[in-house]
């Protein structure tokens, strides 16, 4: 039973063309996170939601936005993807910010 679902698993977009990645959870967790992970690197936190409260990391580019319309869903919007934004995007959830995180399988984004 999938608990954190990410769609699509693979996404190809063109340089500068807006793209949205989605994440849903069946755990009813308060916190949802978006991470960017490039090859051979650690996941880099972009932002997280605690319920409806949005928390942006200081070094997250303005090009990255997020929406959480309800407890179950969270979206990552990349307004104008550049070649440097090609990466694996991981969604995670947790009951609270100090609790274990449950990761989805990720969406691999390719920018052409």
């Amino acid at each position, binding site marked *: 039973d999938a608990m954190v679902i990410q769609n699509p698993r693979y996404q190809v977009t063109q340089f500068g063309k807006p793209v949205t990645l989605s994440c849903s959870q069946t755990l009813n967790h308060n916190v949802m*996170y978006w991470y960017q992970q490039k090859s*051979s*690197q*650690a*996941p*880099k*936190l972009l932002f*997280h939601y605690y319920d409806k409260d949005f*928390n942006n*990391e200081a070094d997250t580019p303005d090009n990255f936005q997020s929406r959480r319309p309800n407890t179950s869903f969270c979206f990552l919007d990349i307004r104008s993807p550049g070649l440097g934004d090609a990466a694996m995007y*991981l969604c*995670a959830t947790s009951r609270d*910010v*100090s*609790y*274990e*995180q*449950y*990761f*989805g*399988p*990720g969406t691999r984004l390719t920018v052409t």
Partner: protein
Amino acid sequence: GQQVMQIPQYQHVQEGEDFTTYCNSSTTLSNIQWYKQRPGGHPVFLIQLVKSGEVKKQKRLTFQFGEAKKNSSLHITATQTTDVGTYFCVMDTGRRALTFGSGTRLQVQP
């Protein structure tokens, strides 16, 4: 700001050998978590350490939290090929979302 070091960056061992990865923080931690990410997979939670000097075991894995709550280690006894992957420590200072360490990639030669 908080600095995190995880060493080694990479370790290649023969199956049956032991393996240890270390995580060091410049600031005192509220707690520390460990995750494993298999090649092509996503991070999976292994354990959380909260108390100063805490030691926890999971089969062949032993996790330690330093007395000063600034460092932690993960030790694998008698590695197996199923242990292959990248091990991340994830640090909680109690003030913000958790911070991933740089990771240690483990390769096990059969």
